[in-house]
């Protein structure tokens, strides 16, 4: 083992645009090429998204492909130098590595962290035989919904849980929220998926398991609160009573009504809500503790009495109140806060428990459970056994996007990493604390900020910075350098913490991309009705026009928003603008946003849905309306709209649709889902709407997925659709360029880059918004809270006065940092141009939002204030250049020209066992056996009579015959076979061939059911299930002919109709009815 002084672990701090994928790929190649041969199997690279995984794999293969062909670039040169290889060796090694990777592809270990964990857990559960194959569930919300539905369905009268739910419902009712508990509960309960909750879940379960835990806790808390209230209320009430008996009011005392006396005593005498208690004023702790300060000059005659009463009655009571307040207020307030959320606590604990049960019953693991699961399995072990099968052969680890790693994930990786490092194998990690914006998904930036150094050991850690920004043009880099340096300082000041400057210590970047670029920030004021937001919105089209006039295609522009609904509004506005007179003729305003990518954003899809809904329920007028409207839109855009919506009359409504639809309506209803959609597409000719084919395609993919995984019927599908239509998985994915402005949220934009970026509403809150404040899980060492363990409390200022002040402050710092990071991600997406609009400091929206910070930062930075225009309240740097290159048509793409759908059923030749089987059966089939079919099946299989019984057993095994039918059939068959003509066919001594193929020259073949051969004697027998027919006879004669050609001189032919048990004998082209079925019995007679 090598001594620890070697810096085997590299941490790259990679600010925005600093080329981390290349860094990762290079490191991978370096290790793999250094050791050659199979060594690449020892490297594991983990990324956070599938996209990143794919990108890295592709890059490595592409590099290797090029290098193996002898091509070279800067990366190749660096590698050669660092590996000490000459051109030839390098080329050869690359070629070798490429071959190995391609043919041992399973060992090419680049995956997402989730996928890696799944692999580990699967192998663990399999090998240890603990459980069968568990089902992995990705959609935790759907599971939660189900759990909550069950929970509500199972509520029983007079239960603690029922009480909580009712309390929850009433609380919502009084707070003017929707009162339907189901949906709010789901929202609310998603809390249990947060890592914060998971971290304490087990402890929580332990605590709450105790019987009467909640009743007990509630009593305790009330006791604390009431004791305090009583303690202050008694003396305060006394004082007020004395006033009353003496008919005094504040006017009788010094400072009169401004003295604060009334407020003080009333608060303590009657106040019920501790959180609305005000702090005790200085005067109550100072002046009023001296009797001489009590009397008012206005009532000299009362001075003496007041002096005396103050001394003996008032002052001791004030002291008592103050004293109790100082000692117990925080505790009582803490109790009150905890009480408020107690039902939340109870509910969550119960839901978490139910969820656990649900998972257990269904043998299911949520994707998000995996990190914690592994964590638990690993425990404190340095060499965890779970990794024995999967992890043990890795030596090097590459971890991407480290700032988004959660504590669980990191702890799972740590033993692996440490093992490798201990044995001297280098590993590396890439991350940027400034881009940590996924805390709500468990990302923990403190890992990168400090934990990692502690866990790995500073001694063997080499921290490097990727210096240059290869994404943004110079001016944007300059702007962000100055901006975030200033912002970090501001954040630090406001939160009284040094965390932000520490996180942003590496924010300064050198320019690695082009020179130039521009940044424009404007602070908008409000005028009358016009809010800053509406004027910002109005400026968006202007900006788009300005950019387009400089030759910049829409596809190069992105609008970043904080929340989805903002994007929705912008999209709606641009649509309206496009249709208005203001729109410039040579400009476009097309948009792609999450919304427009919803599958039901397309007319054809809605038509399809309308038709499906109508077929399911013809009385559904809304379905009729949708169908009618979309049909008109597609095929008769000029139709009068009142007519289009005249759907109340079914006959009229249907007369407006293609005749084919009404004609086929009944048969459509009988189609399975997928065929149904295809047929509707065909009938309504939807396949020719070129711009919407992507939507149809995505819609049909959902149908395909649904029927192969769930069910194949219309009602189930439509029900599913209603629930899922607005979810992300049901939106189309863009697989390439679209000439439209992209609107997306900042979170979605992470990791992406755009030539020009507009941030129209740069004003999100720096702190939690009041109504969206999260629950914090807190503990306290003070009684009675300490014995309760973790308690959930709503984040809010009031916590500052409770025992939970510390966690509150921590959360406050974190949320500030989150929002600052969000700003960093937003401002670093642009390559060439960045346009920002924010509310002016004079508006309300500016306060407490990032806009305020932005403004301050510009003023406080020397670099930035230089180009600040105070007259227009605008900042600008650089200028917008005309686009250099023409947007080129992307090579290597193909379009669907139309959407082929055809009716395949007529074309497909299939085996029709079913058709024959059910033939001739009436629908009332109880107790009836289809003898014909079964007889045929047996006869064509047996060689001799002895085979009858075993063959029947086989038919049963194949499910064609039911056991109870077997004896009946056996009797039948024996009877048939005891007939001399038939019996002869099954005698010994023949060379028997069943279903014999005879090859005929020229590609045809014949198959004879039963052929008996003896020297030059041949008997041809065909069994038929249907009615007698001429063709059958012809066929047998043909067989006979063929056999003659083959040299058989004596040829007989027979037809046996199994259903009617009739035998036809064919001799030399003549037929003879050998026997006819006797109506009264099954036996055969001549």
């Amino acid at each position, binding site marked *: 083992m090598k001594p620890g002084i070697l810096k085997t672990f590299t941490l790259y701090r990679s600010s925005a645009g600093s080329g981390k994928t290349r860094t990762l790929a290079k490191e991978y190649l370096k290790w793999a090429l250094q050791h050659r041969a199979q060594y690449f199997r020892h490297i594991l690279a983990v990324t956070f998204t*599938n996209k990143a995984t794919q990108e890295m794999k592709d890059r490595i293969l592409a590099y290797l*492909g090029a290098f193996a062909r002898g091509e070279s670039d800067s990366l190749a040169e660096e590698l050669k130098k660092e590996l000490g290889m000459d051109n030839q060796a390098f080329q050869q090694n690359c070629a070798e590595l490429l071959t190995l990777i*391609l*043919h041992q592809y*399973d060992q090419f270990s680049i995956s*997402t962290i989730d996928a890696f964990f799944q692999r580990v857990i699967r192998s663990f559960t399999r*090998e240890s035989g603990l459980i*069968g*194959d568990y089902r992995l569930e990705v959609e935790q919300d759907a599971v939660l919904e189900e759990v909550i539905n069950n929970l*509500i*369905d199972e*509520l029983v009268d007079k239960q603690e849980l029922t009480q909580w739910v*009712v309390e929850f*419902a*009433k609380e919502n009712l009084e707070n003017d929220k929707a009162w339907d*508990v*189901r949906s709010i509960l789901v929202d609310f309960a998603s809390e249990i998926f947060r890592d914060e909750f998971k971290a304490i879940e087990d402890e929580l379960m332990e605590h709450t398991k105790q019987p009467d835990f909640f009743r007990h806790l509630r009593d305790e808390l009330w006791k604390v609160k009431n004791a305090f209230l009583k303690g202050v209320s008694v003396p305060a009430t006394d004082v007020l009573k004395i006033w009353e008996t003496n008919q005094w009011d504040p006017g009788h005392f010094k400072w009169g009504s401004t003295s604060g006396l009334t407020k003080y005593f009333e608060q303590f005498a009657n106040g019920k809500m501790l959180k609305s208690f005000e702090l005790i004023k200085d005067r109550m702790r100072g002046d009023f503790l001296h009797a001489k300060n009590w009397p008012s000059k206005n009532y000299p005659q009362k001075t003496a009495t007041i002096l005396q009463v103050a001394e003996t009655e008032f002052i001791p009571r004030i002291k008592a109140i103050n004293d109790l307040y100082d000692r117990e207020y925080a505790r009582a307030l803490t109790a009150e806060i905890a009480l408020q959320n107690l039902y939340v606590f109870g509910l969550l604990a119960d839901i978490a428990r139910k969820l*656990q049960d649900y998972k257990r019953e269904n*043998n299911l693991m949520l*994707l998000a459970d995996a990190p914690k699961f592994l964590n638990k399995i690993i*425990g404190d072990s340095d060499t965890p056994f779970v990794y024995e099968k999967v992890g043990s052969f890795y030596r090097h680890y590459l971890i991407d996007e480290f700032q988004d790693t959660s504590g669980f994930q990191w702890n799972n990786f740590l033993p692996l990493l440490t093992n490798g490092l201990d044995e001297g194998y280098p590993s590396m990690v890439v991350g940027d604390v400034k881009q940590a914006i996924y805390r709500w998904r468990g990302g923990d930036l403190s890992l990168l900020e400090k934990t990692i150094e502690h866990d790995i050991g500073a001694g063997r850690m080499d921290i490097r910075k990727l210096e240059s920004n290869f994404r943004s043009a110079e001016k944007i880099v300059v702007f962000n350098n100055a901006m975030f340096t200033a912002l970090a300082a501001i954040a630090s000041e406001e939160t009284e913490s040094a965390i932000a400057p520490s996180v942003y210590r590496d924010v300064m970047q050198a320019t690695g991309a082009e020179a130039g670029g521009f940044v424009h920030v404007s602070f908008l004021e409000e005028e009358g009705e016009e809010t800053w937001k509406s004027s910002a919105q109005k400026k968006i089209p202007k900006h788009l026009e300005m950019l387009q006039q400089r030759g910049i295609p829409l596809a190069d522009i992105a609008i970043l928003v904080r929340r989805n609904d903002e994007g929705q509004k912008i999209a709606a506005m641009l649509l309206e603008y496009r*249709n208005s007179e203001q729109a410039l003729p040579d400009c476009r305003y097309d948009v792609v946003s999450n919304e427009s990518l919803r599958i039901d954003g397309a*007319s054809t899809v809605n038509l399809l849905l309308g038709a499906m809904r109508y077929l399911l329920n013809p009385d*559904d007028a809304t379905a*009729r*309306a949708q169908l009618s409207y979309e049909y008109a839109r*597609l095929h008769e855009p000029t139709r*009068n709209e*009142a007519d289009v919506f*005249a*759907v109340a009359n079914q006959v009229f409504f249907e007369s407006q649709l293609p005749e084919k639809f009404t004609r086929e309506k009944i048969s459509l209803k*009988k189609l399975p889902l997928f065929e149904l959609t295809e047929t509707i597409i065909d009938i309504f000719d939807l396949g020719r709407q070129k711009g919407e084919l992507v939507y149809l*395609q*995505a819609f049909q*993919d959902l149908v*395909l997925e649904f029927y192969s995984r769930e069910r*194949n019927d*219309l009602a189930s599908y439509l029900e599913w659709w209603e629930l899922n239509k607005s979810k992300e998985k049901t939106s189309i994915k863009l*697989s390439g360029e679209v000439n439209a402005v992209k609107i997306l949220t900042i979170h979605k934009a992470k990791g992406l880059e755009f030539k020009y970026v507009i941030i129209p509403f740069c004003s999100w809150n720096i702190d939690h918004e009041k109504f969206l404040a999260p629950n914090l899980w807190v503990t306290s060492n003070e009684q009675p809270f300490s014995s309760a363990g973790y308690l959930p409390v709503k984040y809010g200022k009031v916590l500052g006065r409770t025992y939970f002040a510390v966690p509150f402050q921590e959360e406050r710092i974190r949320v500030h940092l989150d929002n600052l990071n969000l700003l960093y991600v937003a401002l670093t997406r642009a390559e060439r141009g960045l346009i920002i609009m924010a509310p002016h400091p004079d508006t309300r929206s500016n306060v407490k939002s990032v806009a305020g910070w932005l403004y301050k930062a510009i003023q406080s930075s020397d670099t930035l204030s230089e180009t600040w225009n105070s007259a227009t309240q605008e900042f600008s740097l650089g200028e917008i250049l005309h686009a250099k290159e023409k947007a080129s048509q992307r090579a290597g*793409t*193909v379009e*669907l020209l*139309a959407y082929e759908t*055809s009716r*395949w059923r007529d*074309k497909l*030749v*299939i085996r029709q066992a*079913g*058709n024959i089987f*059910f033939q001739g059966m009436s*629908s009332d*089939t109880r107790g009836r056996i289809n003898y014909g079919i079964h007889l045929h099946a047996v006869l064509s299989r047996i060689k001799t009579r002895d085979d009858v019984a075993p063959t029947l057993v086989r038919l049963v095994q*194949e*499910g064609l*015959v039911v056991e109870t039918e077997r004896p009946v059939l056996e009797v039948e068959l024996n009877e048939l076979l005891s007939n001399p003509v038939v019996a002869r066919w099954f005698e010994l001594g023949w060379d028997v061939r069943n279903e014999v193929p*005879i*090859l005929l020259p020229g590609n045809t073949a014949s198959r004879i059911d039963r052929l008996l051969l003896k020297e030059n004697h041949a008997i041809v027998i065909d069994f038929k299930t249907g009615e007698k027919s001429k063709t059958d006879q012809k066929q047998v004669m043909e067989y006979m002919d*063929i056999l003659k050609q*083959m040299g058989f001189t004596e040829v007989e032919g027979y037809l046996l109709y199994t259903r009617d048990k009739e035998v036809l004998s064919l001799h030399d082209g003549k037929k003879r009815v050998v026997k006819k079925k006797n109506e009264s019995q099954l036996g055969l007679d001549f």
Partner: protein
Amino acid sequence: MKSFLQNLAEETLKKHPSLDGLTIVFPNRRAVLYFRKHLSSLLTQPAFAPRINTIEEFVSGLSALHVPDRLELIHRLYTSYNAVMNTRQDGEETMSESFDQFYFWGDMLLRDFDEIDKYMVDARMLFRDLSNQKELDAGFDFLTDEQKEFLLSFWGNFNVDLNANKRKFLRVWRLLADVYDTYREQLGQNGLAYEGMLYREVAEGLRDKPASTDPGQIIFAGYNALTGAEEKIITHFVSAEKAEVHWDLDAYYVNNTAQEAGRFFRSYQRHEILKKTFVGDTPSNFSGKKNVQLFGSAQHVGQAKLMSQVLEEQLGKGFDPEDTLIVLPDEKLLLPVLHGVSGHVDKLNVTMGFPLASTPIFNLVEFLVELQLHQRTGLFNHRQVLALLSHPYVVSADPSHANRYRKEILEKNQVSIHAEILQAGPPLYSAVFRALEGEGLLEYLREVIHAIGSLQYLTDLDKEYTFHALTLVNRLEEVMGSTPAKDAKNWRESLKSFSRLFRQLGRSQKIPFTGEPLKGLQIMGVLETRNLDYKNVFVLSLNEGALPASGNKASYVPYNIRKAYSLPTAEHQDAMYAYLFYRVLQRAENVFLFYNTETDILGQGEMSRFVQQILLESGWKIQRKVLHSPVQPRPITPITIEKSEQVLQDLTKLNEGNKNFKGISPSALNTYIDCPLQFYLKHVAKIREPKEVEENLDARLFGNLLHNVMEKFYRRIQEKKKSPIIQSTDFEHYKETVSQLIDEAFILHYGIEAGRKLIYEGQRLVVREVIRSFVERIVEHDKAYTPFTIEGLERGELLYYAKIENAPGQAVLSGKIDRLDRKGDVVRVLDYKTGRGDLDFASLESLFDGSGPRNRAVFQTLIYALLYRANHNTAGVRLAPGLISRLNLFDEALDHRLILNKIPVDDAEPLLEEFEGRLKSLLEEMFDPNTPFKQTQNLEACKFCLFQNICYR
């Protein structure tokens, strides 16, 4: 280029001119048919075909044993397994699992046994090693107590006593060898075997009885990865000079040791005996000139549609469908591909299965089981009944009937439905809606399936599906027998267990589409392509997990032991797929490859490694393209309804109202202000929401219940004392009264028959409590307000006539006033609001302005005030319209008064004049022939609108 089978036919005929007596053995059935075709094209005279077998047929022909279906095999394994577990006297007791629980394990175990035998592995030794290894590393000793606890809580399906659990677990491993022996013995006694067992028996017995089973001269053709038993059998005949072997291979992958596709050939080339079967030069067709194109597309349907487009284009350029093959590694693509094969092709042949689980009949069976599962004492739940009534086959039986029943259930809000009522329908219904009592499920299913199969209008394909479902049900009955359940709970459990098993079986059961094989365009799965060559080849789903299929089949035998005993591993399987892929391309001239560009949620399913390989190694010039269609949904256009004659007529009719309601309602007016188009669609065009069985208690229902309870509360008092005057003494025991009234309201809503008990559970319980707190609050406030006089409860007969200029000259308004009461000179016009009911409004004007937020509730109560005033003498009366809603209800003192610009409205009279004026112009506009109905600009109004999907809002 001559295909492999063509070459083979020529050679065969050359060497064996008399075909009779020759046996040719292929890996699968497709080759048989093609080979026969090639042979006959070489003939000049009719002749008996040589015996052409698949390897399975050939090998079973050498044995007396018979292989039953998988279900039976697993069930027999279940029996043997239980027998071993129960009879071994090792001091352990066993909990027996139900068959459906066992099925998964049994399937896996059977697969392992099969492989062990096919690869001729010493089973005893293997199981001993396996058991030892498990003792060593899978005992739970490596788990700390804490970890065990955790695992227990997470999955909990092992014993609480972990030690016992461990023993049980290890015991299973220890007894596997016994299970193996017992199982084989049991099968053998019944003349049965699983495939591996049969192969092994044949392979091991060859030396002893070669003469009796002499099959004559044999040709083995087209093999790649042989199992141990196959290898032994073939070697046996080859070394006896009874057989020749023909390999279908290519130098490209055989001679390059890096290519996994050639792995098995390379090893046979070194095989002592088989090596002599490699004669002549290794063919080299693969590297030849080919036209190769690679297409990427997101997801599945895109691939299929793109494929049709390319196919269409190529057919147009002269491709012959019969020279063309479409390979589908993922069966899911079958339907999309079938739909995409268009006009130029008039015949198709599909050689692959369609999973039974994806058919409508399977779906029906699931519904049937659920129907019975939720059935209580002859009552069915409406969900399943409705689902069944709209199932395609049930609809087929009698469309109008199905619809009538559906309507009835909806109209009557029938949460549960009597079996007899439904059985009275068409004949099929009596089978479908038979309420079972604790037994006879399979009977029942069979009966229904039979009835479906004999429906007149069922298509052939549906009959085929139905037929297969029937065989499955028959098999199940045969194998498992029907055991009547002991009690209701047991019965439900057994239903659930049945449906789990049925689902597992349905997924693995494939309905073969095999038809007339040699005609038309060929579509097949990957395995089916063996030995076949086509000029034009399309391969879809070239993604990891489809091709190569995912390697990790569940198995009891872990990797290291597999390796040690030369059992196949994932690499083995990859090599097999590699061969299949390279082979199907080797003689093709035009190759079109398609893959899904999107990976799954875990990032799996990327483009196949085989594609990566040929891209970087083959030296072919491959054209790469990605499907990228423009995203240009049809622009959203505004909807405007011009007031044509017809529209105006319909509009005028609103004045007449309907049987429940006269005139135009305040809520319709509200709708008009919010969005004229919505008003038009809903009230004029009468496009209403479809009916549903209301089981969940939504906001509307909540409102109904509340109104109902409040109305009754005061009616009772009035009836009792025969006076409308309410005093505080009337409120004695009001809590009980409220409880009772709530019960009554629920009973009414669900149409619960007299004598049956109303049970509160689930959401009803929550709703009851919420309503209770609502009502009690109102009542308490009222009590404080006593004495007062009730003037009206739910009064709906009041009308208001507004004169307007436009035709028809007047508008008739009406409304149902929740409550009118009077105290002194104050008449309150009250409305109960369960939703949001804010009292504030900025101005009368604001009530008529639909462009932003406005107070609908206030508007409505003011209309009520108008209605009151129009029908009563209001001299000397202060008319105080107001709301009782969740906003003021929980205040200490209830103030119902509307608040105009921060000032409470004590008397509406002064407001009403302006209000009437504005109302008039509103109505004027509504009836104005020149003002069309337009969409609102206020997106908030769209949020709860029924027509969102029409307006794209």
